[in-house]
């Protein structure tokens, strides 16, 4: 009897030990291995998008190029999962060391793109098939979107006991094929390609979340980006007012300056942001646009100072940022990520710009309490609905933000208003959420909870008082030291030369005849 109890107890312990740890507390990163950046065909956008989506699912990521993969790196102790991204199918790049390690790896595996290996097919309980030159349509949540023309696509044929995410339809009359977009079999998953925006994103997000960190459904957050101190504040105000009157909560991704804050224009900018806060808008401070030939101009010290100064100036003016908005490359950089994004637990992850400086590139990216995958609201416009786009239809498995650009003209303003209202989505409303958003910097702790802003625990009232322009007299600069000498030196010299010139003129006048007579040839 005792032996039986003992064996049961051992069995329980062993089964507990062997069970892969798939809780949120799992801090192991995910290894993202891509074959090529494929710059010519904008492949960097795909890598950027996959990285952002993984971060949005609360994961820390290590990104490695296939050729640089070192044998033995991928193991159960170090990584929670592996994502294989075939970004340049035509090149047929492979690394046998990686293939072997992946076959032995027992964590989560996701394969994106073609070149599925035999062991992966076994894990996915399927065979592979090939589609050539097809016009595909993606269907999810009863919404369809026509995809760009597909030249070649590998798909999984057969298989059972699997979860499917979205549906791809070919257009062959009579021989129409219906294939799943995303497939998940236990800990293994497959996507035939990766799309960075549009309808496919909801399938990708759901697949990733189911694989790694299942989350409650998220409603999308509406973000107005490109808000800068030089933007047209009149249109910002009009847009914000229109959103408020339609009960649409929103967020702003807004930059700040640390100089010229004594100008009336700066007060106007801060006032515009305060008005947005009063109209149920959250402010995310967008990190500065970086310009640097070499990356050496950006240092941890000056970046820390700039970020802290800009945030503090906002707080001083009654604007309380609840997070930061940053392009993804910030999170792939040791200095920019660690120093620049340190203050925030909430971030909006923007797509990378075409070119950007690298300060100290790292393969490791950080995870955040909440990181939003930002994509354009216009990307959804291509999707056609067979049913009315119901409010429940567009929710996402990871935090997603849909952005519109701040309009620059009246026509753009009309267009933006129209696209937001027509989308008819159920937007995330931070004011009704129970979660708290925090920012910590320079001895300040900003929190946002259920519609109220707190600074170091003190609730804040946001003022709607408009700034008044000052008609200040021009301050007289006080000259000192060397400047004073130079100042008088200049005046003295000018006086001296003028007097000399005058004397010279008088002399010429008096003696002109004698003078010229002297030089004339006789």
């Amino acid at each position: 009897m005792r032996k039986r109890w003992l064996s049961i107890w051992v069995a329980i312990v062993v089964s507990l030990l062997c069970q892969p740890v798939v809780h949120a507390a799992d801090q192991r990163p995910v290894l993202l291995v891509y074959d090529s950046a494929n710059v010519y065909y904008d492949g960097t956008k795909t890598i950027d998008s996959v990285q952002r989506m993984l971060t949005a699912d609360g994961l820390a990521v290590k990104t490695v190029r296939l050729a640089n993969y070192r044998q033995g790196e991928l193991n159960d102790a170090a990584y929670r999962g592996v994502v294989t991204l075939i970004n340049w199918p035509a090149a047929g790049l492979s690394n046998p060391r990686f293939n072997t390690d992946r076959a032995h790896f027992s964590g989560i595996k996701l394969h994106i793109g073609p070149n599925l290996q035999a062991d992966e097919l076994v894990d996915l309980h399927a065979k592979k098939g090939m589609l050539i030159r097809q016009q595909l349509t993606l269907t999810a949540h009863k919404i369809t979107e026509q995809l760009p023309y597909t030249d070649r696509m590998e798909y999984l044929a057969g298989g059972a006991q699997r979860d499917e995410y979205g549906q791809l339809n070919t257009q062959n009359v009579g021989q129409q094929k219906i294939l799943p977009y995303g497939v998940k079999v236990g800990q293994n998953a497959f996507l035939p390609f990766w799309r960075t925006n549009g309808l496919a994103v909801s399938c990708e997000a759901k697949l990733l979340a189911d694989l790694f960190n299942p989350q409650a459904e998220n409603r999308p957050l509406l973000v107005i980006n490109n808000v800068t101190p030089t933007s047209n504040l009149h249109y910002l105000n009009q847009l914000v007012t229109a959103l408020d009157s339609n009960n649409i909560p929103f967020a702003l991704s807004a930059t700040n300056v640390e100089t010229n804050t004594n100008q009336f224009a700066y007060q106007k900018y801060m006032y515009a942001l305060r008005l947005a806060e009063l109209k149920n808008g959250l402010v995310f401070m967008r990190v500065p646009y970086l310009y640097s030939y070499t990356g050496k101009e950006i240092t941890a010290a000056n970046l820390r100072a700039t970020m802290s100064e800009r945030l503090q100036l906002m707080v001083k003016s009654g604007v309380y940022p609840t997070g930061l908005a940053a392009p993804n490359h910030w999170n792939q950089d040791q200095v920019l990520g660690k120093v620049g994004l340190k203050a925030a637990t909430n971030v909006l992850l923007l797509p990378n710009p075409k070119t950007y400086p690298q300060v100290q590139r790292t393969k490791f990216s950080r995870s955040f309490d909440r990181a939003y995958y930002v994509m354009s609201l216009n990307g959804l416009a291509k999707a056609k609905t067979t049913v009315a786009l119901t409010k429940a239809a567009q929710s996402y498995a990871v935090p997603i933000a849909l952005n519109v650009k701040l309009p620059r003209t009246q026509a753009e303003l009309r267009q933006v208003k129209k696209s937001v209202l027509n989308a008819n989505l159920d937007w995330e409303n931070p004011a009704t959420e129970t979660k708290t958003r925090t920012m910590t910097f320079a001895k300040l702790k900003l929190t946002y909870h259920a519609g109220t802003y707190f600074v170091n625990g003190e609730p804040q009232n946001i003022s709607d008082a408009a700034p008044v322009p000052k008609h200040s007299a021009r301050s007289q600069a006080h000259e000192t030291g060397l400047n004073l000498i130079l100042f008088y030196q200049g005046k003295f010299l000018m006086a001296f030369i003028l007097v000399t010139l005058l004397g010279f003129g008088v002399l010429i006048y008096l003696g002109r005849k004698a003078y010229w007579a002297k030089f004339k040839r006789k």
Partner: protein
Amino acid sequence: MIEKLRRRVSPPLLACLLAAAIVGYLLFLTPINGYADNGDFARVIYINGIYPLDPKNYQYTTYLTQHYGLFQYYNEHVAMLFSSQGLFVKMAIGLNKLFYSRTIFDLRFMGLVYYGFYLGGIYLLTLALTDRTKRQLVDYVIALLVVFVFADSSLTLYFNSFFAEPVMIIAMMYITATLLLLMKKQFTRRWSLLVGYFLAAVALITVKQQNAPLALSLVVVTVGLSFVYRDKLVRWVAPLICLALLGTGLATYVMITDQFSNINSYQSMTRGVLLKEADPGNSLEKGGLSRQYGLLKGDIYTQTYAATSVKSKNITADFIPQYNFAWILKYYLTHHQQFDEMLDVAARDSYLVQIKAVGDFTKDSGAKPHQQVQYFTLFGAIMKAFFPKKFAFYLTLCVVLAIIYTIIFVIGIKSNEMAVAIKAFMMIGYATMIIGTFITAVVGDGDADLAKHLLIVPLALNLMFLQIIADVLHHNFWHPAREEQQ
């Protein structure tokens, strides 16, 4: 001893030999000296097929890089701006391929090309400033002065770099020398001098986009020629040269690519118009621009931490195209105080010929980052320390010189010495060049890169001073076209 020297070595040859030794040592003997890249080299090197060998460790501003790579395959870079500098770079690449390597470019070949033209310039300039026939002691003094002024390292360091300034330095020397020689009518080969003058003038105008307005001053200079050479053919040549110069100036101005002119337009506002006003919002609104752009005050185009992307439509469509040169000039004319302050900022920088922002040594030399050359910089140092730093001074100086040379011109005409016209118009043209450069630098690019944009000011002044000194030493200040008065 002196007699022997006189017989064997003419003053121009002496100047040439001295300059060759002084400058050759600076440029070619390892460790070599020159100006390090401030980021501007990229505009020149890629379009000409040159690239930094080790981009990751490429030294910006701190150290001079001696070796570059030469593209072996198709070059996809297109010119960001049209410049006569390309011809010199192509020449250097040709020499490099002939004598050194087809894959590695040694910066010294760039220096060598400029060095050749420069020594020719020194020879001609000294020849023009001295008396060819007599070889008096004063002529040797003048030769030494030419070397003292033009072999100054602050100027010659430019030769070992991909900056456009060496072309300006050399072109100004040739322009002055050919004109003075034409004035002396000593040369039988008038046509070759005219061609030399014209080529130098075109090179000067086309080398940099901000030199385009110099075409106007050069037209003033050219007018002098028509007083002197009155035979039918030459009478046609002077107006033709004027037209060609104006056309070249206009072409240079038109051919500025958008990206390049955007940088200048942006900075002429942020580092110019907005810079000296506490709250420029009202002035902007009066000029039809949004007050918000006042917040860009003080920013450079590539501000490390910018609040607005310079590539966004907010800047490229709503800001930069909304004003132009005339807008800025009008602003300055209605805001005297700001204009005066900006011009004084420019005046402070005009004799800072040696660029302090970049190092002059290679890393292998063991020098510190940004280390500056001290060798043969006495003239530059003196001018930097003692030359007045107020725009009012420059203005007065130019006005006084213009008046004096008008008087000399009148005297010349009265005494039937028409050749004086060349010198008088050259001096007056140079005076307008100095004032014009100040104004275009401030209006065109604010206080950004001022020391480099103002290089024409010390060049023109040095050349004017040298002529005045030479004339005074030859006792023919009031009659420059005459042989020395006894």
